C-alpha cells in the first residue's frame, strides 16, 4: 500500500515532513512516497492514499491529524472532514489542461522508470532520429514563446544558436525565478526534474551543444537537492553523459547555485555570474545566442520553456501544442495564483482565460474574504490591475495593450486593505536594492523614486508630475527591464488607484 506525502518545499514548510514521519510510525507496512505537489497549495499538505478505487486525497493534514484519520479508515479512503476525494475530480484540477505539469504530484520525482512510463523520454527518443533543423522546425511550429518573461519565440533563438559556428556551445537553464508570486519553475524542479533534464538534452541535440548549466537560485534548497539527485540518476542511467541513450550525442549537465541577486535572472547578468563575475547586465548586441557563456553561442531559456519542449517533440506534439491558446500566445501557461487568494497554487491552462476567471472563479477571491482590490501580474516588474480590467485575457499581447505584462505568469492578489502608494514605493525600493548599478536611470532614478514617493505619501501630491517624469526616464533610459519596467507597477498604481496618492490627512500644517 502506498501513501503519498508531498516532498515539495511548500508542503514541507507547512508540516509535510512531520506528517510523513507520523505516518511512517503509524503505518509501518505502507510505502510512503514523497511526490511533488499537485499545486493545490491551500490543501497542502495534501496526503493521498492508493485504494482500489484510485487515489484519495486528504488535506490539509497536520501530524496531529494522523490518529484521527486512521480511526476514520483513511487507508481505505474513509470519510473524514479533511477528505478531498480523488484529486483529479477536484474542480481546481479538473479545469486545467496539464501539459508541462502532467506528472507533477503524481509520480515519485526521482523515479526515472515512472517518468518514462508516463510519457517521459518520448520526445527525446524521437529527437534522436532527427537533425537539428527538423527539431527546430517542430519547435517553431508549436509557437512556443519564452516563459521567463519576454515571450521571445524559442524556435528563433535555437535557430540562431544552431547557425552560429563554434567549437563549444551551451544550454543554460534560467532557474533564478526571482519574481514574487511565481513558483512554477520550483514545482517542476522539485516535482518532475527529469522533464527539465530531458528538455535541456533535446536543446543540446538541436543546436549542437554538449554542455548545460542550470543556474538555480539559492532560495530554493529543496529544488537544488532534487535536481542534483536527478542529474546523478540521469548520468547513471545514460540520459546524460558521453552517449545520450546510447546515441552519438553527448550532453553533460551541471547545477550552479545563485547568491541572492534578483538581477541575475536577467540572462546576460546570469551569464556573467556563471562565469564568476558580479552579475552585471551586458549591453546587447551581441546576443547570448551568438556570444553567450564564455563568449560561446548559448541558449538561455527559462525552466518552463525547456520543460515544454519534450511534449512538443513527441510524435504529433507540436501541432497539439499549437492548437491550444489564442492569438500569438500558443499552448498552455502554468499560471501561479499567489498572495491573498482563497485557492492559491498552480493552474495550467491554455492562454485565453480572463484574469477575472482566474482570480475569482479559480482562485475564489481573497483568502481574507474581503473584496479584491488589486492584482499584480508578472512579478515585481508587472502592473497592478484593478477588478475593472478583469476581462483581460491571459495573452501576451492583450496584457501589453493594457500597459501590463504576463511575465512568468504570477498573479498576486491583494484585498481592499492594500495601500497602493506603499506598493509603488516598494517597487522603487526593490529596484534600488537590486539594481546592478550599470546605468544611472535605474540606479539613481529608483533611489529618487523612493524619496519622491515618501513625499507624496507625506501629503505632497504636487510631486506626482516629478514621479511620472522619473518613470519616463527610467523606462526609456535603462539598459534592462529592471530599471525599464519598474515604472509599470508604479504608474499603474497611480493610474488605477489615484485615491491612494491623495493626502490622507488634512494638510493643516501648510
Amino acid at each position, binding site marked *: 500500500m502506498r501513501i503519498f506525502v508531498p516532498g515539495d518545499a511548500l508542503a514541507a514548510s507547512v508540516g509535510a515532513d512531520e506528517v510523513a514521519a507520523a505516518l511512517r510510525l503509524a503505518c509501518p507496512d505502507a510505502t510512503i512516497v514523497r511526490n511533488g505537489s499537485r499545486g493545490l497549495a491551500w490543501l497542502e499538505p495534501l496526503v493521498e492514499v492508493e485504494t482500489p478505487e484510485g487515489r484519495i486525497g486528504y488535506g490539509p493534514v497536520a501530524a496531529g491529524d494522523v490518529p484521527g484519520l486512521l480511526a476514520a479508515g483513511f487507508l481505505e479512503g474513509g470519510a473524514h472532514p479533511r477528505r478531498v476525494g480523488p484529486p483529479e475530480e477536484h474542480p481546481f484540477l479538473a479545469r486545467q489542461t496539464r501539459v508541462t505539469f502532467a506528472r507533477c504530484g503524481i509520480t515519485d520525482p526521482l523515479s526515472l522508470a515512472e517518468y518514462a512510463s508516463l510519457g517521459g523520454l518520448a520526445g527525446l527518443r524521437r529527437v534522436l532520429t532527427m537533425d537539428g533543423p527538423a527539431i527546430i522546425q517542430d519547435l517553431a511550429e508549436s509557437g512556443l514563446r519564452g516563459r521567463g518573461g519576454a515571450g521571445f519565440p524559442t524556435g528563433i533563438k535555437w535557430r540562431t544558436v544552431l547557425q552560429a559556428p563554434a567549437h563549444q556551445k551551451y544550454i543554460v537553464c534560467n532557474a533564478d525565478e526571482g519574481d514574487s*508570486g511565481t513558483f512554477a519553475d520550483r514545482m517542476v524542479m522539485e516535482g518532475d526534474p527529469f522533464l527539465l533534464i530531458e528538455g535541456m538534452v533535446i536543446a543540446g541535440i538541436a543546436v549542437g551543444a554538449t554542455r548545460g548549466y542550470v543556474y538555480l537560485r539559492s532560495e530554493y534548497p529543496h529544488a537544488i537537492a532534487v535536481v542534483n539527485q536527478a542529474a546523478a540518476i540521469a548520468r547513471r542511467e545514460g540520459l546524460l553523459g558521453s552517449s545520450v541513450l546510447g546515441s552519438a550525442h553527448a550532453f553533460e549537465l551541471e547545477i550552479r547555485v*545563485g547568491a541572492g541577486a534578483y538581477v541575475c535572472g536577467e540572462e546576460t547578468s546570469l551569464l556573467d555570474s556563471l562565469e*564568476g563575475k558580479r552579475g552585471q547586465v551586458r549591453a546587447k548586441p551581441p546576443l547570448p545566442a551568438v556570444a553567450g557563456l564564455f563568449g560561446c553561442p548559448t541558449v538561455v531559456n527559462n525552466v518552463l520553456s525547456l520543460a515544454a519542449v519534450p511534449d512538443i517533440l513527441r510524435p504529433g506534439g507540436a501541432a497539439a501544442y499549437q492548437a491550444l491558446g489564442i492569438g500569438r500566445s500558443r499552448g498552455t501557461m502554468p499560471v501561479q495564483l499567489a498572495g491573498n487568494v482563497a485557492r492559491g497554487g498552480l493552474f495550467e491552462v491554455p492562454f485565453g482565460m480572463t484574469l477575472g476567471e482566474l482570480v475569482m472563479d479559480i482562485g475564489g477571491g481573497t483568502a481574507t474574504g474581503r473584496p479584491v482590490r488589486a492584482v499584480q501580474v508578472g512579478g515585481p516588474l508587472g502592473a497592478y490591475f484593478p477588478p475593472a480590467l478583469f476581462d483581460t485575457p491571459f495573452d501576451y499581447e492583450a496584457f501589453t495593450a493594457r500597459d501590463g505584462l504576463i511575465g512568468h505568469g504570477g498573479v498576486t492578489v491583494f484585498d481592499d486593505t492594500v495601500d497602493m502608494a506603499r506598493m509603488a514605493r516598494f517597487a522603487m525600493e526593490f529596484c534600488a536594492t537590486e539594481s546592478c548599478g550599470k546605468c544611472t536611470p535605474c540606479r539613481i532614478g529608483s533611489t529618487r523614486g523612493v524619496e519622491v514617493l515618501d513625499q507624496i505619501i507625506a501629503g505632497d501630491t504636487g510631486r506626482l508630475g516629478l514621479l511620472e517624469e522619473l518613470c519616463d526616464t527610467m523606462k526609456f533610459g535603462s539598459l534592462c527591464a529592471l530599471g525599464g519596467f519598474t515604472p509599470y507597477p508604479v504608474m499603474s498604481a497611480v493610474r488605477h488607484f489615484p485615491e491612494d496618492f491623495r493626502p490622507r490627512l488634512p494638510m493643516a500644517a501648510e
Partner: protein
Amino acid sequence: MPQTIAGRIEEIIAPYLSLEGPAMPTLHAVQAAYGFVPDAAVPVVALALNLSRAEVHGLVSFYHDFRREPAGRTVLRLCRAEACQARGAERVAAHAAAALGVGWHETTPDGAITLEPVFCLGLCAAAPCGTVNERTVARLDEARLDAILEAAR
C-alpha cells in the same frame, strides 16, 4: 598539528578550482564552511582564482548571500516580497523585530538570532513565509513566529 587558516581554506576550495567559472562555487564553499566569508579567505581565493583581492571583495559585496561577518546561531529570514505582503508579512516582520529588539540585518546581543529580509522563496501561495536556518516555514503568523523564536533562544 595546528593548521593555518589559509591552509584550511585552500583545502576547502580545492575541489572547485577546476570547474568552468569557479568563483561562485568557491565562495559558496567558503561560506558553507565558516558561515561567512572571513577576510582571511579573500587573498587565498584571489590567488587561487587568479583574481585581484578587489575583485573578490567585489563579488562578496555584490551578492546578498555572502556575509563578511558571522551571523547569529539562528538566522531568521522573513520574506518581504509582494505576495507575502498581501498576507501580512509587514505585520509579522514588525512583530519579530519588536520581540527580538533588532532591525533587519541585525543580531540579538546574545548572538542567538539574526533577522534578515529575503525576497521570495517561491512559497507565495502559502504566505507569509520565511526560513529558520535551513528550514522553510510558511503560513506564518505572530503565534507561529513566537514558537519559532522561543525554540531558537
